[in-house]
């Protein structure tokens, strides 16, 4: 078992002296063929999931079509995918749905913005007072333990059937989540950095603007993203239960008019909108956190 009797290549010597490369880890080798290979691999990595996603969704729709074709389930409960697909343009062209969706989304956005603004201000105030943070968490957790939808009847009493009712319930659902995340984020500011800021004689407003808020931002943004999904559920619930407007109401109208195929198409539209909103918020969250971590 003797060594080779030739001097190894210079590259080998360089690699041997490289302490950071662990055993068995492939090191990139430069070269035209590998560059092409890498490009192809990158290509495949982005294309393959999309293709697979389309195939997977297709199998689900095919399964749905098979169930309806066998007549196992009545057309009146579960229309076939083709029936839903043909009524989709009808639903998409329905001006009532446009107005309803706009109403739902505006209420959603307004509630989210209002609740977040209030919760962030409150949360920053509470979070900077150490003896207040824990009692505040306990109080908030206790007060929000009523599922938000249970308060819809009360909100109807207080605000009537207009958008304010939906918004109020959504604010109740959202604010505690953002508040808790803000308190947590603010309280979690690295103490050493606060000391450093003190030693630089930063005034309180600069400490907040430059240090406390940035370090709390990831937690706050995550809180808003989580809360947004719940807010949408709550707004739609309120519309089902007695709102005077909104996508939920349109959905109920389709169902009551026995156009169940249109109800399914409507849910598809609402779902796609929800997915888009969720995707946007996740993207915004990732961007914000990435930016904060760069600082």
């Amino acid at each position, binding site marked *: 078992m003797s060594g080779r009797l030739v001097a190894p290549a210079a590259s080998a010597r360089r690699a041997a002296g490289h302490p950071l490369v662990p055993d068995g880890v492939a090191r990139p080798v430069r070269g035209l063929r590998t560059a092409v290979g890498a490009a192809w691999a990158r290509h495949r990595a982005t294309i393959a999931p999309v293709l697979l996603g389309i195939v997977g969704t297709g199998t689900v729709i095919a399964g749905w079509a098979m169930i309806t074709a066998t007549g196992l389930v009545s057309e009146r409960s579960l229309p076939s995918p083709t029936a839903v697909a043909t009524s989709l343009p009808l639903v998409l062209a329905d001006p009532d749905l446009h107005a309803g969706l706009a109403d739902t989304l505006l209420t959603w956005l307004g509630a989210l913005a209002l609740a977040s603004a209030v919760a962030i201000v409150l949360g920053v105030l509470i979070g900077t007072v150490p003896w207040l943070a824990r009692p505040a968490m306990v109080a908030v957790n206790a*007060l929000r333990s009523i599922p938000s939808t249970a308060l819809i009847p009360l909100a109807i009493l207080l605000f009537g059937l207009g958008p304010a009712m939906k918004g109020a319930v959504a604010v109740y659902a959202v604010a505690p989540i953002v508040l808790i995340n803000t308190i947590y984020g603010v309280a979690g500011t690295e103490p050493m950095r606060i000391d450093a800021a003190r030693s630089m004689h930063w005034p309180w407003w600069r400490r907040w603007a430059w240090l406390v808020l940035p370090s709390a931002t990831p937690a706050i943004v995550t809180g808003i993203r989580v809360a947004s999904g719940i807010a949408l559920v709550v707004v739609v619930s309120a519309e089902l239960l007695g709102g005077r407007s909104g*996508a939920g109401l349109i959905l109920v109208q389709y169902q009551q008019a026995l156009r169940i195929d249109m109800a399914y198409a409507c849910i598809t539209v609402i779902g796609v909108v929800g997915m888009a909103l969720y995707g946007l918020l996740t993207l915004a969250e990732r961007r914000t956190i990435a930016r904060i971590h760069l600082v």
Partner: protein
Amino acid sequence: MTKATGTASTTAAATTASATDPAAATSAVGHRRTGARTRRALSAVGSLWLLAALLVAWEIVARLSPSVFFPPFSVVLGQFGQDWFAARPQTLFASDRFLESVPVSLSRLARGWLLAAVLGVAIGVVLGRSRVARHLYSPVIRFWMSVPNAALLPIALQFFGITEAMNIFLITFGSMWLIAVNTADGVAGVDPSWLRAARSMRLPRPVLYLRVILPAAAPHILAGLRISLGFGLILMIVAELYATTAGLGHDVALYQQTFRYREMWSAFLLIALIGIALNAAVDLLERRLLRWQRRTGLASL
């Protein structure tokens, strides 16, 4: 859609609180266990004052500006005792009204949520173990996760009518996708060293899944279960408000429609207490099952 940060935040707050507590540093080693317990009890009482203050504030405001919609807290408390309790040891002091509503609602929630847990974890494990399955079905699952699940109510009604099955379907379908996604995240993220060790020991499949993969993914799975319980509660109430003949949500709707606002508030209080109890139960379960995670410092924020 994760409240995992919410979970982590409470734990983090608890640890920072004890870290800054000077009593913690001076407690004798021999009495560490009992000392920690007393300290935890004391700090729990100490952190309740703000809640108490808010309840007192409610009382004062409600007395100063009387409104039928907002009875004072003491009145609600009195109503609460009257509505839900009876001097009957044989039913554990529960009133007839309690026995008519609470078991109905809780059994719906329990059945719907447990079914969602079983389905969600099963789907999540399959997705977590297979990248192809993940790519195939993640769009569909993300769609179902993003549909505001209350929107399924009219369709569930069409499908099942006003039945228990409708309630359970809504709760299950509304919470299982979140559990599935969290489980898939957890399973896909299991430390490869553990899997390699398991492979070198030639563990049979059932043991591999039950003793290695599921425990290792437990932090994510439990976070999913906790959030989905909140969603389950929301959906249970919506379904009961919308179309049922019994249950807590039905009670709330009935009191509102018959102008019995004190009773409505007493129902709110009961629902809140149930919510707190359920949360505490999941908390306890999490603490028990994830003791290893906190001790090994693997619990990440």
